[in-house]
């Protein structure tokens, strides 16, 4: 084909995209904020697929170390895998809040056009950052590379210009949220959400300055990593969950808001100082052993509390709803959060054992299940809520056409992640034992552990379950594009513990 043919094909494709976008923007079932939310959800799903793809490539490189060597190195695959996860979760959270903002405040979103502009700026910036990661993989590090290529901090590698852009976008988001609530009505969810967004934007700046002392640098870096994930994200998800439960199961506002306040209190009581478990081995004073150990041991308490409340509710309420995929993913959220964050976290959180496990595949095992259980699941649940509304608030309960798709996707994703978690746990146990305890964390010990047959077998099993997760992810993507199409039955109206068909 000639260049002209390609150009013509591209023009036709672009024209089709614009037509589909215009058709979507005219969808009468969605408010302005919900249309912007669907933009965020769409990019979130694309990034989820990218996370799976780069995870598979990185996993393959554990089994075949020369695979894509000097073409797409392991460190780049791993970086894109983790960055894609962080960003798709943020996209999911931002989208979820835009989704319910108008309904919660009772007025149209203030400054929506700024919100749209921020979305396109953020998406453009993410695209450029990833392309730069892939195109410039090797080189010396200096001020120029820090500003334009890679900041060099694990998990938040985005260059400084993108960092500034992210903060500006979050500030625009903050303006949309606070100005809308100010113009409409405030609620308990609105108050908690607003305060949390201040922390979300503010904490990110802790990872944007550079100091020459590595201990001090790591000290502030953890403020972004831990306090984002185990404080501000948890509260953000609490707000999203509170609204989802009112929508899905008709739980009363007073109940969800009270529990939201309790969650914030528990978060202050354990999550913030639980930060100490990251300070064990970075050169900070030894009192962090005590603080980190104690408060990390308290972190599972909210999860145990959740069990009591869920049993109380199952005994006290009718358990019916008209969006089975969303409810399934909320149930997966409860179990995944409990196992991934609670059980897998506490197994290696105290310094007496963390000395051996920190940074091994044990951490990866905990990370895979905790992030999936605590955050991916709630985002997917919200995607299904959005899909239902996009189709005209149709029935998405039993007897749904092609219901096998969402069920199979849910089974494959949950089994796949659980399988990867167990495989990584075996690898991490072996590393802790051989590399750390027996060999004393030497370079030779590192290779002895990596070449041990238990490690290698575990990596093969991780790949098998990784493929299962990827198939589940693809099926989920397909299902979200198709679910509810052709369905004419309206969804049941759910309010205050009562369902009206």
């Amino acid at each position, binding site marked *: 084909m000639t260049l002209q043919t390609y150009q013509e094909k591209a023009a036709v494709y672009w024209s089709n995209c614009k037509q589909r976008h215009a058709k979507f923007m005219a969808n009468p079932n969605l408010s302005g904020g919900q249309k912007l939310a669907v933009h965020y959800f769409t990019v979130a799903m694309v990034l989820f697929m990218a996370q799976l793809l780069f995870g598979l490539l990185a996993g393959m490189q554990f089994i075949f170390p020369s695979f894509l060597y000097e073409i797409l190195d392991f460190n780049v695959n791993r970086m894109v895998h983790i960055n894609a996860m962080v960003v798709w979760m943020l996209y999911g959270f931002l989208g979820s809040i835009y989704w319910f903002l108008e309904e919660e405040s009772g007025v149209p979103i203030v400054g929506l056009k700024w919100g749209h502009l921020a979305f396109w700026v953020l998406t453009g910036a993410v695209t450029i950052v990833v392309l730069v990661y892939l195109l410039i993989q090797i080189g010396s590090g200096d001020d120029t590379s820090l500003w334009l290529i890679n900041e060099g901090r694990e998990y938040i590698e985005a260059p400084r210009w993108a960092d500034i852009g992210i903060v500006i976008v979050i500030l625009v988001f903050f303006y949309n949220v606070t100005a809308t609530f100010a113009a409409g009505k405030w609620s308990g969810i609105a108050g908690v959400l607003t305060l949390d967004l201040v922390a979300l934007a503010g904490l990110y700046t802790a990872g944007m300055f550079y100091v020459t002392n590595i201990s001090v640098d790591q000290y502030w870096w953890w403020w972004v990593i831990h306090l984002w994930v185990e404080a501000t994200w948890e509260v953000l998800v609490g707000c999203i969950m509170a609204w989802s439960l009112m929508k899905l199961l008709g739980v009363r506002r007073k*109940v969800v808001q009270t529990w939201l306040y309790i969650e914030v209190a528990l978060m202050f009581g354990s999550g913030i100082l639980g930060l100490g478990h990251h300070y064990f081995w970075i050169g900070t004073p030894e009192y962090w052993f005590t603080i980190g150990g104690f408060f990390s041991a308290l972190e599972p308490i909210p999860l145990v509390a959740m069990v009591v409340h869920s049993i*109380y509710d199952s*005994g*006290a309420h009718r358990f019916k709803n008209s969006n089975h995929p969303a409810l399934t993913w909320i149930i997966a959220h409860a179990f995944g959060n409990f196992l991934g964050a609670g059980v897998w976290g506490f197994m290696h959180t105290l310094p*007496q054992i963390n000395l051996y496990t920190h940074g091994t595949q044990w951490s990866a095992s905990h990370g895979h299940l905790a992030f999936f259980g605590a955050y991916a699941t709630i985002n997917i649940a919200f995607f299904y809520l959005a899909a239902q509304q996009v189709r005209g608030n149709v029935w998405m309960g039993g007897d749904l056409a092609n219901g096998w798709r969402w069920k199979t996707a849910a089974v494959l994703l949950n089994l796949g992640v659980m399988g990867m978690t167990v495989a990584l746990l075996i690898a991490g146990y072996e590393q802790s034992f051989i590399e750390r305890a027996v060999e004393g964390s030497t370079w030779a010990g590192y290779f002895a552990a990596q070449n041990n047959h238990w490690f290698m077998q575990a990596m093969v099993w991780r790949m098998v379950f990784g493929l299962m997760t990827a198939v589940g992810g693809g099926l989920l993507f397909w299902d979200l594009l198709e679910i509810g199409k052709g369905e004419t039955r309206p969804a049941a109206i759910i309010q205050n513990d009562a369902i009206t068909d």
Partner: protein
Amino acid sequence: MLIEPVALSDFFLSFFSAAMIILTATVYAGLFAWAKISARRSVYWGAWLAYIILLVCVGIFSIVNNFSGYWLLLSLTMALGYAFMPRLIWHLCVATHTLEPKHSHHSGGHHD
């Protein structure tokens, strides 16, 4: 306060007892709540059995992690905290749902 790391021979016991602490705490909390809902005495005894296993796990965890001084306070906090937390949460559940239309809040209520 310096720490004494887990001995190589106690690795498995440390991991396993830590996991069991969270799991038995959850089983205890779950059975406790179920006993309140169903008013069955056997479930109530089951909850206490789970709690006794939890105490054993806390004990093993404390020994293999070489707890002494302050760290023993942590064991005590876990043992007492996990005993009382389900009760506290139950009271909060009852208090936050007081104004709801009554379905089956009372003991022995039916399940839809």
